């Protein structure tokens, strides 16, 4: 498939899922009602304030957060896989999700849930810094050392989280904690949109421009150096930006698995491994996929909601398996 074609298809799909997603939910709205409500707050004729509230204050921020988180995870996944040359790398590689979880769970249990994004972001970045520092101390940021350091930091932060959960969580907070750990955008309002957009703008957009640099790593560090890349500096910069991006996203959504790991592979199977196309297409695919998954999460078992992380794996894993089976003829 040509990258342009897939890009166009994903663009249409994104517009479609954004629109449809605004209409479905506990209160079923028609496209016309949604449109009227959208215009209503932009100075158009006023509509039922309840409908306007549902569209503008509940659904829209949640959907935009899902789109931004999905897009960011797609980009971060591509970058992590490229600079570690590891197909199993995901955005949380450096212990980011475990670090964020610890920060989040700690403040949730302390009853300071308004601090949650800050605590999760801090936890994620502390974990990333620890992992990068550990790998550097081991002798430099080679792919293998980076992965191993991430595993070590991840395991430690996860153990801390488990300890805190086991010791302090009671019936009431259990659900809140578990839902955060599984990843969810259910509570996202406009501040969360701003945080996710900030992360995507500050760290995600610069990463979108690194396609050719990531290409240079295809045959390893020496080959990249011979193509004029400053390997240690570039790897620090890429991992740092990817950690910043993922840290920002995880602070609003918890760690949503699967998106950043598998969508880059799916896009690669469709358009090939060139990163100049892979980065923006993975961002688009991530956005479409997470909005779709979150829409399913809040509608399929109405009035109950599933954490979106459960859906991303339930829906995404079989789709990915099909793609893998199809790709056998390509290899």
């Amino acid at each position, binding site marked *: 498939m040509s990258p342009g074609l897939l890009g166009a298809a994903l663009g249409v799909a994104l517009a479609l899922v954004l629109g449809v997603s605004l209409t479905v939910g506990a209160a079923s709205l028609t496209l016309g009602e949604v449109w009227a409500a959208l215009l209503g707050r932009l100075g158009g004729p006023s509509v039922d304030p309840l409908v306007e509230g549902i569209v503008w204050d509940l659904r829209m921020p949640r959907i935009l957060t899902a789109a931004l988180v999905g897009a960011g995870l797609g980009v971060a996944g591509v970058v992590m896989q490229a600079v570690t040359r590891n197909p199993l790398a995901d955005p949380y590689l450096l212990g980011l999700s475990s670090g964020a979880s610890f920060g989040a769970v700690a403040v949730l249990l302390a009853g300071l849930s308004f601090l949650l994004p800050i605590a999760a972001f801090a936890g994620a970045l502390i974990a990333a810094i620890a992992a990068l520092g550990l790998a550097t101390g081991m002798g430099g940021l080679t792919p293998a050392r980076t992965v191993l350091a991430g595993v070590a930091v991840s395991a430690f932060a996860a153990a801390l989280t488990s300890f805190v959960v086991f010791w302090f969580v009671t019936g009431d907070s259990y659900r809140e904690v578990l839902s955060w750990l599984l990843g969810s955008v259910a509570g996202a309002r406009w501040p969360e949109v701003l945080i996710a957009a900030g992360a995507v703008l500050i760290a995600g957009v610069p990463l979108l421009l690194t396609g050719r640099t990531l290409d240079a790593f295809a*045959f390893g560090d020496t*080959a990249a150096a*011979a193509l*004029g*890349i400053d390997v240690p500096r570039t790897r620090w910069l890429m991992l740092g930006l990817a950690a910043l991006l993922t840290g920002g996203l995880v602070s609003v959504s918890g760690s949503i698995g699967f998106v950043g790991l598998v969508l880059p592979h799916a896009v690669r199977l469709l358009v090939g*491994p060139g990163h100049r196309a892979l980065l923006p297409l993975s961002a688009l695919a991530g956005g479409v996929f997470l909005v779709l998954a979150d829409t399913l999460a809040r509608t399929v078992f109405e009035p109950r909601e599933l954490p979106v992380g459960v859906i991303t794996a339930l829906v995404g894993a079989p789709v990915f398996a099909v793609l893998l089976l199809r790709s056998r003829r390509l290899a």
Partner: protein
Amino acid sequence: MSAGGPAGGPGEGRVGLGPAGLTVAGLTVRVAGRTLLDDASLEAPVGAVTALVGPNGAGKSTLLRALVAAHARVRGQIWAGGVDLGALSRRERARIVAFVEQDAHTDLALSVRETVALGRIPHESRWRAADARSAAVVEQALTGLGLEHLADRHIGTLSGGERQRAFVAQALAQEPTLLLLDEPTNHLDVAAQLHLLELLAGLARSGLTVVTALHDLSHAAAYSAHTVALAGGRVVAEGASDAVLTPAFVERLYGVRAARTSNPITGRAGFAFAPRAPQQD
């Protein structure tokens, strides 16, 4: 060009085979407290193949990797075609020096054309798509190495010889003046080995400076004009291949018995080896 170059200055051709395509002065590489390359100085003539020989661990790969700035801690000076590489940015350097690694590998499903196009990275703007000239250079490299019919194949599906030619094509797409190769005939069948060596000789004749590590001393004797011998991270001999690669020197360098032979088909020089006699130990 920097002051303080080797005697005679870079590019003036101490080697007597025309101007120097590569001049290295006092190159030292230390990794984790170990000296892998110790004060190496050497030259390689333009328009000829220079062979790097020496036993395993002698520092051949270290030297080549240092020439493409793949090591963090390097001391010493390097000129390519009279240009001081130390004064250049990495990107500028990669437009002058290209490197074909030993056993390069990727898990990505890159086509041969995409692999060759990686060689354009040092010439490309980060902001724009590849221009028409870049695409033409890639096609020319593919054609020049007889790869046009394989251009859309996945790099992992090629034979060893075809893959090695694709990597040479990638290096040529960098439009270098200096081409470095690390054991390029490794794992190739005899036909592919000869094909590659003829190719390198042809590239040298067209004006490129070719420096290649070689294990097979018969290849070195037959295809290189100039030889640099390394042992224990030091340059132990350098000069015209005929003069350096004497049986006595080869015996000392590798700890084997060696005799010069003449290839009965081509008449070119070669080597025959035997283990050291047990009573000599």
